[in-house]
């Protein structure tokens, strides 16, 4: 019974998301020139950190013992997964200003789940830029890494991208929940979202052990690419993890979603609106 209700709520949410995202796309289309410029700009911005990596490799042959194609593999996975999450829920950082100016209230009186409405808020097609750029690097990496491909390894690649995207989505939702408590502190979530995707572009061997433990067990983004990528590339895991840990990403993603959902509920329950 609850399954049916949940299902219909999810359906309602997706429907509302589609409707609102459509409105934002049409709004963006009214400034056609600006739209083209920002799409190109987005491609360039996201491409720059890969140029940074290329610059580093113009000086060295390996970083933390990993060679360029391997790092490109990490990079492609991290950026593509994050890019998808960014496209789907990336504008959640406007929540803080929506609460401040009171327009969040207007979303609460609509017959659609608020999470879907705020998720679709400021939906921007230009964010496809990051996904495109990440995918290009990923394809190049797949073609250049030296791997004995097995069925499991092949399957793991799309699984990583999807689970990674879901994990980052959960981070965005948790960040949005946090903004309900601290509207002005929206930037904190950048540390976890942009910081997270930047971190995952470099191999785990670069970072301190405690740091790696932190991003494996506490803030488990190591499962976006580090752990499964080590399995694919035949490298030792960053920590003494069991062999099957490479296939844990969907599980980790599910747990993250659950926790983010709870955080969002708690946040919404404590919402106190502005004024008075």
């Amino acid at each position, binding site marked *: 019974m609850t399954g049916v209700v949940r299902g219909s709520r999810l359906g309602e949410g997706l429907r509302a998301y589609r409707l609102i995202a459509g409105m934002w796309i049409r709004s963006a289309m009214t400034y056609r020139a600006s739209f083209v*410029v920002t799409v190109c700009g987005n491609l360039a911005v996201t491409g*720059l950190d890969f*140029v940074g990596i290329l*610059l580093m490799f113009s000086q060295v042959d390996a970083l933390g013992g990993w060679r360029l194609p391997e790092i490109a593999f990490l990079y492609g996975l991290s950026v593509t997964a994050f890019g998808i999450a960014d496209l789907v829920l990336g504008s959640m950082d406007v929540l803080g200003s929506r609460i401040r100016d009171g327009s969040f209230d207007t979303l609460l009186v609509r017959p659609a789940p608020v999470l879907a409405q705020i998720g679709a808020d400021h939906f921007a097609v230009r964010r496809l830029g990051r996904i495109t750029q990440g995918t290009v690097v990923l394809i190049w990496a797949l073609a250049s890494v030296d791997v004995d491909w097995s069925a499991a390894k092949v399957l793991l690649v799309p699984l990583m991208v999807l689970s990674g995207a879901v994990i980052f989505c959960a981070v965005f939702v948790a960040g949005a929940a946090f903004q309900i408590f601290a509207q*002005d*502190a*929206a930037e904190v979530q950048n540390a976890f979202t942009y910081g997270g995707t*930047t971190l995952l572009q470099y191999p785990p061997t*670069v970072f*301190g052990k405690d740091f790696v433990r932190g991003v494996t067990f506490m803030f488990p983004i190591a499962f976006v690419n580090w752990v499964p990528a080590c399995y694919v590339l035949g490298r030792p895991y960053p920590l003494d993890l069991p062999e099957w840990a490479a296939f844990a990403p969907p599980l980790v993603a599910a747990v993250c979603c659950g926790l983010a959902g709870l955080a969002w509920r708690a946040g919404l329950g404590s919402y106190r609106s502005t004024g008075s």
Partner: protein
Amino acid sequence: MGSGRLYAAVAAGGFRRYATYRAATLAGVFTNTVFGVILVYTYLALWDEKPHLGGYDQAQAVTYVWLGQCLYSTLAIQGGGAEKDLMDRIRTGEIAVDLYRPADLQLWWLASDLGRSLFQLLGRGVIPFAFGSLFFPMALPTDVTSWAALLVALLLAMVVSFGIRYLAALSAFWLLDGQGISQAVMILGIFCSGMVLPLNAFPGVFGDIVRALPWAAQLQMPADVLMGKTDPLAAYAFQAVWAVVLLAAGRLLQQAATRRVVVQGG
């Protein structure tokens, strides 16, 4: 003297305005610290592979990272300072009011942006830098002169940073596309300032070009001045030349823009 006091008041206003966003400032401190830690680890790995890259040793590379995090919002390296407000005013047409103010438009915004810079330096910059020096090996000078020399380089860097963003903001008079400009400011700012990699470590001709652009005055020069990697006077000269060129260009563009507004208004 009276106008000096006016601009001091404008600067103080810019400082106070940003000082009211306490939670945002704390959030920024946190984010800059996290990014600093990530960058430090990657730089340590890089300098491990290639010691003395760009003429820095590991401790100096770490110092560079934390100075970068310290100056990130101080110099509005990815934008978001006075130019954002200015572009908003151009878009809404409120700029016309500013033009009739009995104060110089450019100096007014410069003062306001310097006030903002100073707050960001104290409120957002100092803590990540201190955090870095506590937990990572850094190459910090122990003499007062080096620090004093840094302050001069910082002031010049603030003016150059403003000069770049003021030009970008004024272009909104003709382009009417704030988003595209903001994005360009961000891309060039992050990359050419050396936020991704110290400009010293950029290879070949590409490196030579990047090191001659005005963005080199923002992070690279202050870092080299602090760590004694360059003659401070040469660094100041480089920064000052760019500051003058940018402000002069800003003034020319401002005059053209003013004429445009007047024509449109009539």
